[in-house]
């Protein structure tokens, strides 16, 4: 058993911040992509939002809440890819995706770096980002905050931010809902002027200046920036002993001491 009284790590702060992003969702399909989003969404299901619907990321709805990367013990339904698309259009879904680039207006790029015609670096392709962002709540997770990720303007718009959605008309903006952008340094939403990224909180041990320094555009920064909350002892017990006993989370967000 891991000691629940030991220092809270950065990864654990991120897990709680991600859980908070799913806390108010109610009975919808939570679709986390990546290690920390998976951990955070499962933490939400075990604490703030037991009604959250979750899948194994393949084709089954999970009845219970197994550790991350474990197989389902109880199954409560079937969600092959065709039904994922159905739920996207139905709207009862909150997806947390990764992002190779995010810009000031909350546009996201996972397609390619450089010009589309001949990219410097071809990435995955836009996947479901265009459809997700005009249909269901979407958040982004950035495990390594830097000015290479947070750029003035993304090279290719895969996920659509609120300003671009409004410009594209009511069919695009009606269900556009970029909820949270969470990085290893801070939490953001799109509440800045003219639909820009706003700093909501900095993680314990991080200064506002550090966030500004690591961001490639001008953030909206309120006069008072709170500190992201630390997970409480019950949450730490769940993270450390139930959901991620092998400490996979530290591989995605290493402990801060180790990186200094």
């Amino acid at each position, binding site marked *: 058993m891991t000691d629940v009284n030991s220092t809270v790590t950065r990864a654990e702060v991120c897990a709680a911040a991600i859980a908070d992003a799913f806390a108010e969702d109610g009975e919808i399909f939570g679709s986390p992509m990546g290690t920390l989003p998976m951990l955070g969404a499962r933490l939400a299901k075990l604490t703030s939002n037991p009604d959250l619907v979750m899948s194994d990321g393949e084709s089954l709805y999970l009845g219970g809440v197994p550790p991350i990367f474990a197989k389902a013990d109880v199954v409560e339904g079937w969600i092959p890819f065709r039904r994922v698309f159905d739920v996207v259009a139905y709207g009862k879904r909150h997806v947390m995706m990764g992002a190779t680039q995010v810009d000031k207006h909350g546009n996201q790029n996972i397609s390619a770096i450089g010009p589309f015609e001949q990219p410097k670096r071809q990435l*995955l392709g836009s996947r479901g980002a265009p459809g997700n962002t005009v249909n269901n709540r979407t958040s982004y997770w950035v495990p390594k905050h830097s000015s290479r990720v947070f750029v003035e303007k993304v090279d290719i718009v895969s996920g659509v931010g609120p300003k671009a959605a409004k410009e594209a008309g009511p069919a695009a903006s009606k269900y556009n809902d970029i909820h949270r952008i969470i990085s290893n340094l801070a939490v953001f939403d799109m509440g800045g002027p003219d639909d820009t990224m706003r700093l909501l909180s900095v993680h314990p041990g991080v200064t506002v200046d550090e966030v500004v320094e690591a961001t490639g555009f001008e953030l909206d920064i309120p006069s008072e920036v709170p500190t992201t909350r630390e997970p409480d002892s019950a949450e730490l017990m769940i993270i450390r002993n139930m959901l991620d006993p092998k400490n996979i989370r530290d591989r995605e967000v290493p402990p801060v001491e180790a990186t200094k």
Partner: protein
Amino acid sequence: MTRPRSKQMTIDEVVAQLTDGMTIGIGGWGPRRKPMALVRAILRSELKDLTIVSWGGADVGLLAEAGKIKKLIYAFVTMDSVPLEPNFQAARQNRTIPEICEWDEGMFQTGLLAASQRLPFLPMRAGLGSDVLVNNPDLKLVASPYADENGDFEEFVAVPALKLDVALVHMNRADAHGNATYLGPDPYFDDLFAMAADKTFVSCEQIVDTAGLTTDVPVQRVLLNRMMVTGVVETPNGAHFTNCVPDYERDEKFQKHYAASVKDPEAWAAFKERFLSGDEAAYQDAVKAFHAEQD
């Protein structure tokens, strides 16, 4: 007793029905249940100038590297445990595929559905506001004839029908008439590919008699009905190195070897010589030998 006709054929007989310039849809999803034996047969053929429609994995990477693709319609190309497909990346970064259409992954389903229903398009939100519309200037919008609750006439993407000349899919079991089952977790969209195509060729792990399809298998797993199918070919391990659960998982060791080989010209030449210079039987033998070395 009268029976439906047999459509059983060989891999070479399937490829003989393909011609230059065809639009070919490839079933499965990324690195999952791909008709790789048929893809390998295309690699060996003289076919060229193909339009490929695929939720892509190594099928796209291999066809791109072999110079078979004139136009690619995709939403992603990935091998999951190796997120970026190196042959596809190289093709994009060196601009060797003349026409590139990157769509949203849900648009694919809508495009196949339109084709399967013989409609020219179906409306969808996906794409609005994104660079999918910028980079595919052929995609048009369509206005709703009905006002929404705010009195707006919403404008949607008119996703064009993804009409296919040929669909290639890989299933776990089929009968000789073309009825076929998937036994894994996800049907993917293989039925839609089949219905969007003029001709559909099904490769499968095993051909069984019709009654055998539903022995210990729920009838809901019979995804393809024979009226959608032109030909059936038995290709054991034919989805390799993608998965075909429960028959087999993805061959991670081989996939790693593939990905590493692509990054070095000499290693890639050796890979092609070893695995892709012979027929399907030679390929399967070479894979067996590869694993014997690893053990």
